[in-house]
């Protein structure tokens, strides 16, 4: 497959860019932040996403979705990264839709995917338990009790966790923290008795929550995939999420970069545009190279998810690691090159830096993915 967007993907990108630029620019994020919006996103805007089919972008057509691929989902994520628009797109349309479409029973798919497509369900993945991403260290327990399970434990940094209706919770049915065997995925009604959700506002004004599970009863019908063998499904879902976040960081990094280049052209010091200074030119040119090289890896990761989902692990790690590092460089350089104005809340550049910091950490930072790649390559 050629490493360029095809005509349909390019059209999707242009449409998304036009729509988000008009309806959800950075002022939209600021407004939600400044009024301390309880949901942390606009339900009216999400309804627009639903009408454009975005909620079901990865849902197969037989369940009412658009039946598109990860490249298309990544195209939308990249545009969301340019405008920093908060929405349940990552949690619901990517993580939950991938998990259910890939591992669900026919009944589960019919039920949940249809609701996702219709915009009736906000769903998310509850996986992390510690400050750093280590899915194999899952300690939350699921103990069998007759024909159901009792869930006990806590999750942290659950995206959209305080507004989700459906949680895909990763719990341990066997083994001990550190084992990849013995994990099981559960579809859990977020309003079930024993679940407490605490919104944890983060630096980037996007949604995250801490969830506690105390004797939460889940029927065996709501096991997603196989008992004790949830690792492979989880890895696949996480890979989809990692590539999507990488695409979002490409968008955020490039937007910060293009604003910086524009500023270098217009800002005058010592009677000259600062873009004439070679010290800044070289740093800008180096950053351009870093971002272009990252874009190649991210596109390849998204294509690999569409071509051979199970074998995408290595390239997804490459993409996530590079996207984190190059977007971080982009926002750091953006603040520095903007000078004092880059430090003000009034100016947008800092918002990019905040979102990229979150994206770095989400589903494994660059070190996590470098380590994962080394393991895959046996050294």
């Amino acid at each position: 497959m050629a490493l360029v967007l095809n005509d349909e993907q390019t059209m999707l990108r242009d449409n998304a860019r036009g729509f988000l630029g008009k309806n959800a620019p950075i002022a939209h994020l600021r407004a939600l932040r400044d009024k301390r919006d309880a949901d942390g996103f606009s339900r009216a805007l999400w309804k627009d996403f639903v009408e454009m089919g975005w909620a079901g972008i990865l849902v197969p057509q037989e369940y009412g979705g658009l039946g598109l691929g990860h490249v298309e989902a990544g195209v939308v994520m990249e545009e969301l990264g340019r405008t920093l628009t908060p929405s349940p797109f990552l949690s619901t349309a990517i993580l939950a839709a991938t998990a259910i479409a890939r591992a669900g029973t026919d009944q589960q798919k019919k039920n949940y995917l249809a609701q996702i497509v219709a915009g009736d369900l906000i769903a998310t993945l509850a996986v992390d338990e510690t400050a750093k991403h280590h899915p194999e260290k899952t300690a939350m327990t699921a103990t069998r009790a007759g024909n159901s399970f009792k869930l006990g434990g806590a999750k942290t940094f659950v995206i959209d966790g305080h507004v989700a209706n459906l949680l895909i919770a990763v719990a341990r049915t066997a083994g001990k923290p550190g084992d990849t065997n013995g994990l099981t995925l559960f579809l859990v009604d977020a309003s079930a008795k024993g679940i407490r959700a605490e919104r944890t506002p983060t630096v980037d004004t996007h949604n995250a929550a801490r969830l506690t599970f105390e004797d939460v009863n889940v029927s065996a019908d709501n096991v997603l995939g196989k008992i004790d063998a949830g690792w492979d499904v989880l890895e696949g879902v996480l890979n989809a999420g990692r590539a999507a976040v990488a695409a979002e960081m490409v968008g955020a990094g490039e937007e910060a970069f293009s604003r910086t280049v524009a500023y270098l052209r217009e800002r005058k010091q010592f009677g000259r545009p600062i873009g004439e200074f070679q010290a800044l030119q070289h740093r800008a040119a180096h950053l351009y190279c870093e971002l272009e090289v990252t874009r190649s890896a991210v596109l390849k990761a998204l294509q690999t998810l569409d071509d051979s989902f199970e074998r995408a692990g290595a390239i997804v790690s490459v993409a996530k690691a590079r996207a984190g590092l190059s977007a971080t460089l982009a926002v750091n350089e953006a603040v520095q090159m903007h000078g004092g104005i880059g430090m003000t809340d009034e100016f947008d550049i800092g918002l990019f830096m905040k979102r990229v910091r979150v994206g770095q950490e989400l589903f494994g930072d660059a070190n996590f993915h470098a380590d994962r790649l080394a393991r895959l390559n046996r050294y």
Partner: protein
Amino acid sequence: MDNLETFRKDTRAWLEANCPPEMRRPVQGEEDACWGGRHPVFQSDAQRLWLERMAAKGWTVPEWPREYGGGGLSRDEAKILHQEMRALNCRTPLTSFGISMLGPALFKYGSEEQKREHLPKIVRGEIRWCQGYSEPGAGSDLASLQARAEDKGDQFLINGSKIWTTYANKADWIFCLVRTDPNAPKHEGISFLLFDMESPGISTKPIVLISGFSPFCETFFDDVLVPKANLVGKLNKGWDVAKYLLTHERDMIGGMGSTGDNRSLGQIAGETLGTDHGMLADTVLRGQIAAYEIDALSFRLTMERVGDMAKVGQAHPAVSSLLKYYGTELNKRRMELVMSAGGLDALEWEGERSHEGRTARAWLRSKGNSIEGGTSEIQLNIIAKRILGLPGA
């Protein structure tokens, strides 16, 4: 698609039948490669045979048109040929500045006579070319070159000198930048000439590098006569040809970086450092190697993406500066890691055990990658101005 699949099958069968086993091992440094030329030096009969067989199909330059001796393959077919060659570890049959630099410039700027004269010989490896660009006073500021060509009727009379002419002492012909109008602004009085290195008045002197090798020469022109028919492009407009050629040279240098050692850095390091629970015993080096591998794979994908973008007309003309800059910096980083992974063994300079210090010499040679063909700083200048549109000079 069916046609391409058939092409793949036939190509693999042909390579299996025709590529000698000795040519399915990595090239061990520049000296081990096949350079062709009037007085070719073959390391083995297999090397000669492999060149002859590939040249007969035009597959030394698979994408050039058949009428100029090339393979006449489409881009997709050429990609398949390269994939199949990689799969069987087939060596490049011919290493040639004619292929990577002069050829593309002749296609764009050469006369029909010049194309018919020179291109087929490049394909068959009959003429070994060298480049006469830099001068002692004109390195990164290339356009300030002084070697002059005076109009003598049907001929030019050339006087001056060049430096860093790669393998000038082994080359048959040179493509050369000369000043034809000393009074014009410095970019506008330059012309692009081709001439035979056996012409009277040419002498060369090798320059020994820190690697102990001397791939480069100083080249002196003392009243050398060159027919005017050997002018490529228009008189005084050689700078356009030179710039175009440089973009191809940059692609080539950016894409280099094989030391002939096919083992991954992780493997090399594992052998010297040992492992601990399957992980390299030096965890810091392990992290650096993994970080390098992430960037190296992303860069390879970028070369592929740039090719795909070029095919659909989306590639920026100055993108070769990105490839040159990033590829050479990456290669230097790789060689530093190879040295760290090899430890004391990598420091050996002589002797059979280290193949005459191959690792150390390759490490030293790599330092030149970000200088030759335009320094990294020059590439960053080009990106800043031409791609990012930043103001100044």
